[in-house]
């Protein structure tokens, strides 16, 4: 972690707690995405949780940490990559006959690798939503920075 100089971000207590919880939030988001077809939640909810873990980091440690972590165009490129991944899963359906056909075998219900292309779509959407919302927040933060300078 970037050494936390006291000027930026919130107080020390918040920083230490953040250091503990950010990993957990990220893990929880990944869990929600992966178990989308078994338990409630899914690509969207998990993606937003991942975005919130970065936002949490950004709020606690100030914006220079965040910009160091992910620059804006890396975020938007990752997002278009996620979108392309989801579209290619859809095009995969063309092999099986029609646009969005679930071509992979369905496997046994109640198992993690069970619902054909649904877990893959969940991962693609989770990546896209997560990185997209982080990109929004980065743009908002950078704009505010420029505003103070003006």
């Amino acid at each position, binding site marked *: 972690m970037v050494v936390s100089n006291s000027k930026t971000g919130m107080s020390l207590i918040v920083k230490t707690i953040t250091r503990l919880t950010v990993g957990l939030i990220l893990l929880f988001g990944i869990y929600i995405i992966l178990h989308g077809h078994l338990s409630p939640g899914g690509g969207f909810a998990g993606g937003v949780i991942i975005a919130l873990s970065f936002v949490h980091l950004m709020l606690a440690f100030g914006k220079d940490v965040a910009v160091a972590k992910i620059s804006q165009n890396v975020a938007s490129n990752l997002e278009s990559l996620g979108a392309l991944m989801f579209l290619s899963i859809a095009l995969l359906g063309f092999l099986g006959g029609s646009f969005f056909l679930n071509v992979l075998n369905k496997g046994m219900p109640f198992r993690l690798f069970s619902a054909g292309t649904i877990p893959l779509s969940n991962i693609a959407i989770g990546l896209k939503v997560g990185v997209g919302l982080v990109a*929004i927040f980065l743009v908002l933060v950078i704009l505010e920075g420029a505003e103070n300078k003006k």
Partner: protein
Amino acid sequence: MSIYLLCLALFCVGLYGVLRKRNLVKIIIGLAIIEYSVNLFFVLLGYRFRGRAPIDAQTQDILNMVDPLPQALVLTSIVIGLGVTALIISLAIRIYEKYGTFDVTRIKRLKG
């Protein structure tokens, strides 16, 4: 029936906020309230008494599950609401930067 009316009353409060208020942020808040009431109304349509969450478990039977279709549509609508609200808030931020105020009447450079 009364639950539906309460939900549409919330819709009208949001509509009142959007049409009547003069502060940009209040208009955005009115829009958020409209989003909430519309989503709630759709899920209310799909509810069944003694119903169960539409997640299959080995033990319980399938028959008395709640209608999953409105839930799928409202999930989409919540994320659409997020997209639109985020766009409108960034517009409001840029307008505040240019005009220096959130008040609609003082932003009236356009003859609409």
